[in-house]
């Protein structure tokens, strides 16, 4: 039945209902969040170390798992609907799969999406889940921690259980379930710091927070565990059946949580998975922060909420482009949105859009599979992004969900330091430490031994001692009395000859050494050592890159694997593997990349150590090859453990020297030559940009950084950079960011950039951040400026130098009372804005323009006299209204996000307690189309709700 609403304006007044009280009173370290579209059942509420959810149907509170790291100072939370329980497919079937799926029926009815590997991009509904799962093995821990379980009685194959789950069924830690990252002969691993970049969603240790506990091996308390997998059935057969190269995400939702941490990395960043009721510690901002996150801060995600902004079929595509001739898009309207291939060639790929014209998209990185005319696509908000603002600063941070890292500008690429690499299909590559060429390696071991000996057990390892060295085998089957009936090759060794009756000595177990084996063949074998524990399995296909000898750079099947870091392959190369390039104090190498020469010059590279609390170094890239980045001196990255990301040089929210539309510094070329760029939409002052540099964001010349020698009203002139612009060339002139050409740091520091020609004191009062080089991360106020010199207020703690890059921000520092909301579904510029209160007792609401990465800082509310400070809370209704509760007054305004007009909405007649930081106001949409506003009491346990009508 359709909704009938007979409520009349003025006749009927809003009424607040009291909801049942929260179990714990609100404080500065508390906040709430709900689903992206505000259409769920729960409001999630975190206060200190306690986490609850309010059930809007039952009017009651339920406690959930506490975060791994106890929040401090303040918190910011945001629910993400389009994320959830992740893992790897263990085996596929026509209408289902085997996964580590928690067991029970928790996953039934959920949507499962194949996110990587075979079958990528498919989405189905899970109809049923095997209740108890198949128990592959069970054990009793002899060594245990949050990160691993060892049972010394086991003789497992290397990585035979990757992706399966372990259930602790008894002893300390019982009731927890975690997926296995990798395993050796007797140990299961659940967390590895190097996997934060390699596989961040399958890298979760056991929780040690009550009521859970990390497993132990103490007698009487030792963890009793099962190794399990579950079979799921989906609602319709797969178009492409997933396999063990496939990763999945079950869209059960999650919650992002940012909070302060007193010492480096100065913040905690955690993710709560709703389906498994488990927190995952993610990588913190790290070196981009110089002190503990503080003052007040807020986070916001973008995503696929609502209908797509664009939905159609490609008419053509290129290495980084997709063209759809039926479109009539506004230039650059969808920059920083996400382009997804939803069907046909290239299905499942998603990329950040870096430019769009009327009919053409360009994306940040080359496609793995270039879409075709059968490729359907959509444009959504970018699900790979979470923004963070506040911290008493002008800097905005951006978190990248899929690969788990932070930037302060648009990200271009990321990876791991890898001199040489070895990769399983569709997975991140492992760094290779060495590839040693061995002749006479065993390439085939007859499964049937010559003599079976006695006393052996399945899984026993043995050395093959006749005719060669370090060859090993494994017992695969025995008969009565421990007589070996089947063996396998465990390590190839070297200098062997073929033949039967090769003697063995047992490595582990009680065999009588009477086992002799038959070497079927020998050959040239490559002994590979990787830099970190791998999750490769015997016979897996792997591809090697980065070796000087091209014979190494091909695909192999693993011949034998005898540890988490060593395995053998059959090779044809004539010598040992040698890396084309290695990590140095000025070079980062990633052998997996195929960059265009110098496409990254002028961008910022951030180098991080492994783990969730990284220290980082930032440098301006001065050159790049296909696999290397060159920069000023750094502490060299570590092969196989250090991570890096590449981002644009201008920080989010840069100032603009000229804001008039026809004087601005960005646009598309409308024509040009090898030495000129013409933009006929401009009306620049003559030589307004002389001496400046421009960068090519997209299109022909992408990545170039060119010095302008002169300009007319529409034309920039420069020395030939080696390319000729065309109408795909999108450019930005470096007006408020660049590289310092001189620095002083006494009394009031000065930054000189001789390429600039600023108006005197146009930056006075603004703020500047060192974005790379020496002094990274410092933000400082500007007192005054000349044409080329900025004078700061005071000095930097760490003096910048001529390696230091900077960005001048448009907005003042954020303060207490700051909130941020993505306006994703308004009538006007839909999905284009992030609205943010400035806080600190100001009356301003700034708006971040997503497609330009700029702040509109004069977006005046009307009327605008109300100021906001600590206690201010906001909520977006998913349409054209944003609600704003001032301080702790209980007065709630309604902001029309299209007209920016402000009207009254509600006023609480009950009272708040003392105003505290944090957002605890949400809007919940019912399935019938009603909207309720929920608001929690400051410093209290009450929650009210009112119908919006």
């Amino acid at each position, binding site marked *: 039945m359709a909704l009938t609403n007979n409520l009349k304006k003025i006749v009927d007044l809003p009424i607040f209902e*009291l909801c049942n009280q929260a179990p714990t009173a609100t404080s500065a370290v508390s906040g709430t969040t709900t689903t992206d579209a505000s259409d769920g059942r729960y409001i999630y509420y975190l206060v200190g170390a306690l986490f609850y959810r309010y059930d809007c149907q039952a009017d009651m509170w339920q406690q959930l798992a506490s975060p791994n790291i106890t929040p401090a100072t303040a918190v910011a939370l945001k629910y993400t609907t389009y994320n959830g329980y992740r893992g790897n497919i263990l085996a596929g079937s026509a209408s289902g799969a085997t996964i580590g799926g928690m067991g029970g029926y928790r996953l039934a009815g959920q949507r499962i999406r194949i996110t990587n590997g075979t079958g990528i991009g498919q989405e189905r509904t899970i109809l049923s889940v095997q209740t108890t799962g198949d128990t592959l093995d069970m054990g009793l821990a002899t060594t245990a921690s949050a990160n691993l379980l060892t049972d010394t009685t086991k003789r497992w194959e290397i990585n035979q259980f990757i992706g399966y789950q372990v259930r602790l069924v008894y002893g300390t830690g019982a009731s927890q379930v975690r997926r296995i990252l990798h395993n050796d002969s007797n140990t299961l691993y659940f967390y590895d710091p190097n996997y934060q970049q390699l596989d961040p969603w399958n890298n979760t240790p056991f929780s040690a927070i009550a009521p859970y506990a990390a497993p132990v091996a103490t007698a009487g308390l030792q963890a009793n565990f099962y190794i399990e997998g579950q079979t799921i059935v989906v609602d319709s057969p797969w178009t492409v059946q997933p396999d063990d190269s496939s990763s999945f995400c079950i869209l059960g939702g999650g919650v992002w949580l940012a909070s302060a941490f007193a010492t480096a990395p100065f913040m905690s960043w955690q993710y709560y998975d709703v389906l498994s009721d488990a927190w995952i510690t993610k990588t913190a901002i790290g070196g981009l922060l110089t002190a503990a996150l503080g003052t007040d801060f807020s986070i916001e995600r973008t995503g696929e909420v609502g209908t797509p902004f664009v939905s159609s079929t490609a008419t053509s595509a290129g290495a980084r482009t997709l063209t759809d001739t039926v479109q009539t898009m506004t230039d650059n309207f969808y920059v920083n949105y996400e382009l997804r291939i939803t069907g046909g060639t290239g299905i499942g790929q998603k990329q950040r859009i870096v430019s769009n014209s009327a009919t053409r998209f360009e994306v940040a990185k080359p496609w793995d599979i270039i879409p075709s005319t059968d490729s359907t696509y959509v444009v959504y908000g970018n699900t790979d992004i979470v923004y963070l603002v506040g911290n008493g600063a002008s800097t905005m941070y951006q978190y990248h969900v899929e690969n788990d890292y932070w930037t302060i500008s648009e990200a271009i690429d990321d990876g791991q330091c890898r001199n040489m690499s070895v990769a399983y299909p569709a997975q991140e590559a492992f760094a290779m430490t060495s590839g040693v060429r061995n002749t006479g390696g065993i390439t085939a071991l007859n499964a049937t031994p010559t003599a079976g000996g006695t006393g052996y057990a399945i899984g026993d390892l043995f050395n093959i001692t006749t005719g060669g060295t370090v060859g090993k085998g494994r017992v695969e089957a025995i008969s009565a009395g421990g007589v070996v009936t089947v063996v396998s090759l465990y390590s190839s060794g070297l200098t062997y000859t073929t033949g039967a009756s090769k003697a063995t000595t047992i490595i582990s177990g009680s065999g009588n050494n009477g086992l002799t084996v038959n070497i079927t063949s020998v050959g040239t074998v490559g002994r590979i050592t990787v830099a970190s524990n791998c999750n490769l399995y015997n016979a897996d296909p792997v591809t090697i890159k980065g070796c000087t000898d091209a014979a190494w750079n091909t695909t192999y099947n693993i011949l034998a694997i005898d540890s988490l870091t060593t395995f053998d392959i059959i090779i044809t190369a004539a010598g040992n593997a040698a890396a084309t390039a290695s990590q140095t104090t000025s070079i980062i190498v990633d052998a997996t990349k195929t960059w265009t020469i110098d496409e990254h010059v002028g961008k910022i590279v951030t180098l991080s150590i492994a783990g969730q609390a990284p220290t980082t170094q930032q440098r301006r890239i001065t050159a790049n090859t296909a696999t290397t980045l060159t920069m000023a001196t750094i502490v060299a990255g570590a092969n196989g453990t250090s991570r890096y990301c590449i981002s644009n040089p201008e920080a989010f929210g840069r100032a603009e020297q000229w804001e008039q539309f026809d004087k601005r510094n960005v646009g598309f070329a409308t024509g040009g030559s090898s030495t000129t760029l013409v933009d006929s939409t401009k009306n620049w002052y003559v030589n307004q940009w002389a001496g400046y540099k421009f960068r090519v964001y997209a299109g022909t010349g992408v990545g170039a950084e060119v010095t302008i020698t002169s300009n007319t009203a529409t034309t920039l002139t420069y020395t030939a950079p080696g390319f000729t612009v065309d109408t795909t060339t999108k450019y930005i002139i470096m007006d408020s960011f660049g590289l310092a050409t001189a620095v002083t740091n006494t009394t009031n520091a000065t930054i000189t950039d001789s390429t600039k020609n600023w108006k005197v004191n146009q930056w006075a009062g603004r703020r500047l951040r060192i974005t790379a080089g020496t002094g990274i991360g410092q933000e400082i106020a500007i007192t005054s400026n000349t044409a080329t010199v900025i004078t700061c207020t005071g000095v930097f703690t760490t003096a910048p130098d001529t390696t230091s890059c900077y960005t001048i921000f448009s907005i003042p520092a954020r303060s207490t009372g700051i909130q941020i909301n993505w306006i994703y579904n308004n009538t006007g510029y839909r999905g284009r804005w992030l609205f943010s209160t400035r806080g600190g007792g100001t009356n301003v609401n700034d708006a971040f323009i997503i497609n330009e990465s700029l702040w509109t800082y004069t977006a005046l509310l009307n009327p605008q006299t109300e100021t906001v400070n600590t206690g201010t809370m906001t909520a977006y209704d998913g349409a054209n209204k944003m609600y704003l509760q001032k301080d702790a007054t209980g007065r709630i305004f309604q902001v029309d996000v299209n007209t920016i007009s402000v009207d009254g909405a509600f006023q609480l007649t009950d009272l708040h307690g003392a105003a505290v930081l944090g957002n605890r106001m949400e809007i919940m949409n019912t399935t019938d189309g009603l909207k309720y506003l929920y608001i929690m009491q400051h410093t209290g346990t009450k929650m009210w709700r009112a119908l919006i009508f």
Partner: protein
Amino acid sequence: MLTSGNSFRLLTKAEKNKIRLSFNFPKETLAMAENKFETNNAKETENKKRMFLKLAGVVGLSAFATLIVPKKAEALVFGSTPASNVVGVKDSANLRINPAEKSQLPTALTALGNLKVAISEGSLSVGNVGIKKIDGSQINPASEEGLAAVGVSVNDQGLWMLRKITSLLKPLGMVTGAGSNRLSVDVNSGAITASIAATQTLGTVTTVGTVSSMTNLVNIGNVNGFSMVKDSARNAYANSIRSKISF
């Protein structure tokens, strides 16, 4: 008190045993008494009187001391250890009296015998018999006649309180014209300001004027205050909002 010699009553053996059990006399004392009962009749009455005097003296002193002396002191006074059940009499030199040796009263009261009962200047005095304090020193009746002066263990708190109350009431005391004493109590005609501690309970209050603020009304008539407000708000919602929406 004995009124005459006829007051004495003959004791049977069983009755003597009762006395022994009751007072725990030393065996020597009882044997002496039994022996004397078996003498000729002429002396019998006199001997019984003498014996009775001995016994009465001892019993009287014992009973008196039992009343006024603490238990531990009792034992010390009577020459035995606190753990002993044997009671004896000591002489002035603090030596125990042996009834076998000192059981005869002198024929004439003027002649002092071993009992050291002296009659002097027409008065009967037990010159060397006294009561000791816990510390073993003898109580001096001249200066230590009050119970309080005897020691803390016998200090009567009630007596002290009584003195204190009397002292406090003294300002209220007045003498009437007839010379009688009485207490005068003033009538408070001003307002009384009530102050209730957080954890106290206020019983019935007839009228409450203005309550400036009440920060937390937990219960009203055993009904949770929050629930009452919540229910009220929900009723308002149901009547004003929900009733105008249909699906």
